[in-house]
């Protein structure tokens, strides 16, 4: 194959294009297989942003803007934290169906605890601890009693809903000055229509994301989490001496803690607690994780991909709102998109075998 560039400019143009394609193909082939799903997510994100930009940008205001990004994060910071915890669990090949119920429970608990006169930091800490305890219960059921993760987390989901019901069947307003101040606090940037902000929830969510990233990619525990999802039920991890039992329980504790934090963030967002909150929220979290490129069967995935998945989720909501559809259409769309990704994953796995 001659690599000489011809002098003719037309031919040269063609050859340039061809060599670019060739180089791109070589780069893609060399790219690690694991990144392919996330690539899909990023592409989806770009496509959606493109559609939005086309349809909704006006002369004065672009659709794609810092305001959009900021709003996405403000509205979905609780979901990001939920999805991060869920990522840990799904990476080990498990699942946590209790997170939505935990969010509801934490919201109601916060409302109640404030009426008991406890100070803000204590209330927030207790709220998170509620999530941690639920996670610990699931972890024990799964690891010690060998109960399947979806059954164990389903049972704890019912437990959390039951407890939420006991606290109150009506919506409870969260009445505390410190809490409201925290909810209202934000750093504002830009001006007028371009105004965008960073609030406490966003910072918390991004911090959790960073910590999760470091844990999963730079600690032995994090790599063991991946190892557990290798498909042999943790046999290899066990024989490598990496403590599968402890890791598995911790993974559910992490998911529960994230659910607790998400409960706090959601309470900050809605400033109330309601026992019917969060129905279907676990599906949103799972959707974000799966759309973000993590395989439901475990072992493959990136928490940064989950971040992208949350952005996709948020964009779906924004686009639906812009189109003037009812909000419950989001649920249907998310369901369809999740289904699409699950089927795709399934097809790819079968193909590989």
């Amino acid at each position, binding site marked *: 194959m001659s690599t000489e560039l011809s002098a003719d400019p037309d031919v040269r143009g063609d050859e340039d294009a061809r060599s670019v394609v060739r180089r791109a193909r070589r780069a893609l082939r060399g790219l690690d297989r694991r990144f392919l799903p996330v690539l899909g997510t990023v592409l989806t994100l770009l496509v959606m942003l493109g559609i939005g930009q086309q349809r909704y940008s006006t002369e004065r205001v672009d659709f794609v803007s810092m305001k959009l990004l900021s709003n996405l994060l403000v509205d979905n910071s609780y979901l990001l934290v939920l999805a991060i915890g869920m990522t840990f669990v799904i990476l080990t090949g498990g699942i946590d169906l209790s997170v939505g119920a935990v969010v509801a429970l934490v919201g109601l608990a916060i409302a109640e605890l404030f009426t008991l006169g406890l100070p803000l930091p204590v209330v927030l800490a207790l709220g998170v601890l509620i999530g941690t305890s639920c996670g610990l219960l699931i972890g024990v059921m799964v690891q010690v*009693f060998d109960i399947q993760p979806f*059954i164990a987390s389903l049972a704890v989901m019912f*437990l959390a809903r*039951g407890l939420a019901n006991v606290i109150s069947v009506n919506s409870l307003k969260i009445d505390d000055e410190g809490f409201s101040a925290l909810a209202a606090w934000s750093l504002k940037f830009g001006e007028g229509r371009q105004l965008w902000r960073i609030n406490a929830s966003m910072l918390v969510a991004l911090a959790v994301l960073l910590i999760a990233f470091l844990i999963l990619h730079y600690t032995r525990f994090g790599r063991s989490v991946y190892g557990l999802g290798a498909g042999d039920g943790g046999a290899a991890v066990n024989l490598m001496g990496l403590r599968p039992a402890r890791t598995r329980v911790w993974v559910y504790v992490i998911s529960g803690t994230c659910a607790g934090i998400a409960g706090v963030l959601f309470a900050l967002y809605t400033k109330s607690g309601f026992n019917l909150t969060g129905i279907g929220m676990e599906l949103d979290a799972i959707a974000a994780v799966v759309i973000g490129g993590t395989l439901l069967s475990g072992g493959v995935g990136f928490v940064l991909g989950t971040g992208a998945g949350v952005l996709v989720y948020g964009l779906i909501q924004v686009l639906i709102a812009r189109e003037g559809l009812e909000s419950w*259409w989001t649920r249907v769309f998310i*369901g369809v998109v999740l289904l699409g990704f699950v*089927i795709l994953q399934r097809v790819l796995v079968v193909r590989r075998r």
Partner: protein
Amino acid sequence: MTPTQPSTTPAPAGPSRGADIWREVTHHGLFWPVVALVALLLACGIASPGFLDVTVRDGHLFGQLVDLLRNSATPLLLALGMCLVIATGGIDLSVGAVMAIGLAVSLTYLDTAPDPSNVGTVVTAVLLGLGVGALGGAFNGAMVAGLGIQPFIATMILMVAGRGIAMLITQGQITTVTSPPFKTIGSGFVLGIPTPVVIAVAAFVVVAVAVRRTALGMFLEAIGINREASRLAGVRSRRTTWTVYVIAGVLAALAGLVYGAPTMAADANNIGLMKELDAIMVVVLGGTKLDGGRFYLGGLLVGAMLLSTLERAVIIFQFPSQTTPLFKALVLIAVCVAASPTLRAMLRGRRRADRSDAPAAPVETVSEVTA
């Protein structure tokens, strides 16, 4: 040379026979649920005088026990389908949503019909509702059996998206219709027995005959215990699994009709909420394990009664009714943990070390290892 494996030998005759019968009875999966049911009924009877009275009034049965029976109908219908699905090693989290969709479709049809009280129209409405339930089940079955997607994810998607569909059908309103024939599905009486009970028992009999009088039951259990072995033995695992999800969908829709008929209102958001929990509880209380395999239809009857008695007991003993889900959840967790093999091993004081892959017997094989 004969293996020393302990095996099930027939019980010896003689004085130990009584002890053996006692052991068989107490070890039967239904023993504790029946005991619990009887105990609960007695406790309720003591705490609330007249609880156990059944009289005949206006030509039909009347009494708290009768109410209990009527309330058991919906959970029984849901649990029937759920039990078959669980037997194959799956789960159906969408039953509550399908209840809502089925009811929504039926009532919306009646609402748009010229004469909602016409029996023919009602029959069509009912069939439509059941048909939609079958569709939902078919979707679930296609995902699980056809594409090999994990059951909890596939049915959860329908569970969440299904509510959206129900909202779509009812346009976000709570559809109410007046139609006496339809209403009797939920609040009428057949030969003095509440209609829901009759419907539920009829469904139970049909399912029981289909499952135990044919090879369906054995195939379901085989699929749930070892899917690949069943496939290799020629069992049509995919087709059978798909069928079972369709059955569950139809039964869920029927449950929705029975449940919503008395009020004649379709609240797409709330009907069937948390009903999955009820269905799973009835199955588990009836002795069927949640990871599939052997299932017990008879136990569903006990389980459904136990569930409604539990709900009633909460009221009689003056717990706030909102604590009912909590009790149910605690019972579910307790049953899951109790059924865990690890717990049994722990109680017997076995070691933690995993011995599941131990050889069955010391093997003395002859192999000409030639040079």
